[in-house]
């Protein structure tokens, strides 16, 4: 791995490729670009980028398909960049393994922030193989020891609360859809019982957040799901 994070941009619009390459290069990233799905998959396999920015409307294969095929062998963070702004499109892409979703047009600062979050998350998942402790704000989560502390004091969680927090925290930075949370923490049969999820999220926030009404650790992704934030 180089010190410069390597980003692969897959988009069929020549102009957006050009703008992103210029900006990301100026931001000290190593950038490669692909203008079709197949080209993107080949480059991803050959160059092993640290992050992929992917458009959904590609001339040869659909972006979601690219996402699915990448996930067969790679855990590289994928940020979807698309003009499709329907909830259904977002949820579909996220369920197929994308980490984040940004609709066009977007501000470059927001994209950069999402890139930082995604890169930190992937660094953490790699590092966490050893430590298994995730820090966010004044909360420390030790997944291996099943212990959570907030400001040094131990927080008691029920089994389900812990399972939920563990799933969210081990996917820190990623947008998780309601359905994927429900099927992992509860049971695939309960995939549509969003009301369970709401109740448990509220309880977790009460125990962890400084201000449960304005959560910083477990963020809402309206209409889609939740995202666990690792704060600086």
């Amino acid at each position, binding site marked *: 791995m180089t010190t410069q994070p390597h980003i692969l941009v897959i988009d069929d619009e020549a102009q*957006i490729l*050009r*703008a992103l390459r210029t900006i990301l290069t*100026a931001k000290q990233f190593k950038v490669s670009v692909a203008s079709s799905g197949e080209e993107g998959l080949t480059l991803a396999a050959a160059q092993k980028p640290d992050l992929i920015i992917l458009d959904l*409307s590609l001339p040869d294969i659909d972006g979601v398909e690219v996402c699915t095929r990448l996930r067969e062998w790679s855990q590289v963070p994928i940020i979807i960049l698309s003009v499709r702004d329907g909830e259904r499109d977002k949820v579909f892409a996220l369920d197929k393994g994308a980490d984040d979703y940004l609709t066009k047009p*977007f501000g470059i600062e927001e994209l950069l922030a999402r890139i930082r979050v995604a890169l930190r998350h992937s660094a953490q998942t790699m590092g966490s193989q050893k430590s298994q402790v995730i820090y966010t704000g004044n909360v420390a989560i030790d997944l291996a020891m099943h212990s959570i502390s907030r400001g040094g004091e131990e927080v008691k969680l029920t089994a389900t609360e812990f399972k939920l927090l563990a799933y969210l925290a081990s996917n820190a930075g990623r947008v998780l859809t309601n359905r994927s949370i429900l099927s992992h923490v509860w049971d695939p049969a309960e995939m549509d019982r969003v009301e369970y999820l709401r109740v448990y999220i509220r309880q977790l926030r009460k125990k962890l957040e400084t201000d449960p009404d304005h959560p910083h650790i477990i963020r809402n992704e309206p209409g889609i799901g939740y995202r666990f934030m690792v704060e600086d």
Partner: protein
Amino acid sequence: MHFIPFQKFKADHGLEFLFTILLITIFTLIILPFRSQGGQDHTIMSLLYLLPVVLSSLLWGLGPGALAAVISFLVLNYFFVPPYKTLLVHQTQDLIVLIVFLGVSITIGQLVARVSKSLAASKAREHEAIHLYELITHLAASKDSQEIISTLAEQTLITLGARQVEVMVEGQADIPPSHVRLEGSQQAAARIDSKPTHIVPLQSTGGFLGEIRVWRENAKFSPEEERVLNTFASQGVSTLERIRLSQAASRARLLEESDRFKSLLLSSVSHELRTPLATIKAAVTGLSSQTVEWDSDARQDLLSAVEEETDHLNLLVGNLLNMSRIEAGALKPECSWNSLDEIVSTSLERTRQQTSRHELVVEVPPELPPVLVDYFQIEQVFINLISNSTKYSPEGSTIRIQAVKMDEEALLVMVSNQGPHVAQEDLERIFDKFVRVTAADKVTGAGLGLSICKGIIEAHGGRIWAENLEQGFGFKLTIPISWDGFSRKAGEELTCE
């Protein structure tokens, strides 16, 4: 099938009674010479007199039958029971004979009349059924309300033997009012302005639809005829309703279709507008970012991306505007004399970015006669055709623009590329709105470009079509040179002077 209305069997009232009296008079005159002197045969005579009673009951019904019985009784008494020529009866047995005669003849008369009446009624009912059947068969075959109304008028005319029938249906919502008048073959057109003898409303659950008006010589309608007319009216109404419902259903389908089109347009337009906007916003927010020191090359790169995407957006908006003008029939070319090679070269200039990965060959001789066209609209046509060619033909292939003088009237222009062939049945369709014969997601564009070309060229009095070429695919179009020829063909669209 034509049948004489049963009422014609009967004469008018009054006349029937006269006929009855006449019949008995004639009968009496015939048998009077055979009267025996002693008057012993009056019992036989009384049997004979049952004949005119039965006859008149059969022919003219109950009343005349009864009248015949009474008159026969009097005549028997007066002429055949002694003493003659007086109504006096001397012998008791004669009186009994006479009274029995009266009783029997009235009873027989009533029975006969009743049988003949019920026979007539069942015949009438049979006719009614036949006519109704005919009407229903004809109505079932009718496809629109005009046809239904004609059928209804025709069947009413035939069935009732009317002189004239008029069926009037009021217009509803977007259905125009209709009106059919039919005249019988005999005494046609007589006293048309007189009042109809009979009017039946066409009444549906939804309200008054119209009415059937009948003119007939015999103004009196029998109950059977009334019933037939009413049944006709209600059959007509239900058929009309059926047609209206099915028309409403097909209108609803049309609306749905146009709704689908609109949402297609919206999604396609928002997609198309956001793509260049994304580049512009990314570049601009990048440039305004405080965290980077931009070197001049990078800054220039981002700025030119913004410039090109702004042009792209402008083109899109222009296309959309033109489309809505074409839709509204408000596309008016502002014509002036232009040379085609100039228009072609500016449109090439404006598509420079898009065509950078294609080989361009332009064969538009400057010595072609000038054409009277709207410069910007024709430029738009070339931009759209070139942009279409770059999208659908492989990179590095050739796009060729050629123009020749076809005849004294028009120039022929061809924009061809080395792209794949288009299925024969789609060659027309590609000029329709939002139609992309290749999968929509794989090529950018709202599917408006070609339909705008068609709109513009047709507003100029020309023609545009697509052809599969030996090697590739081409658009051909004609632009009129001769102004006279143009104004003859498309005079109403002419705004140029």
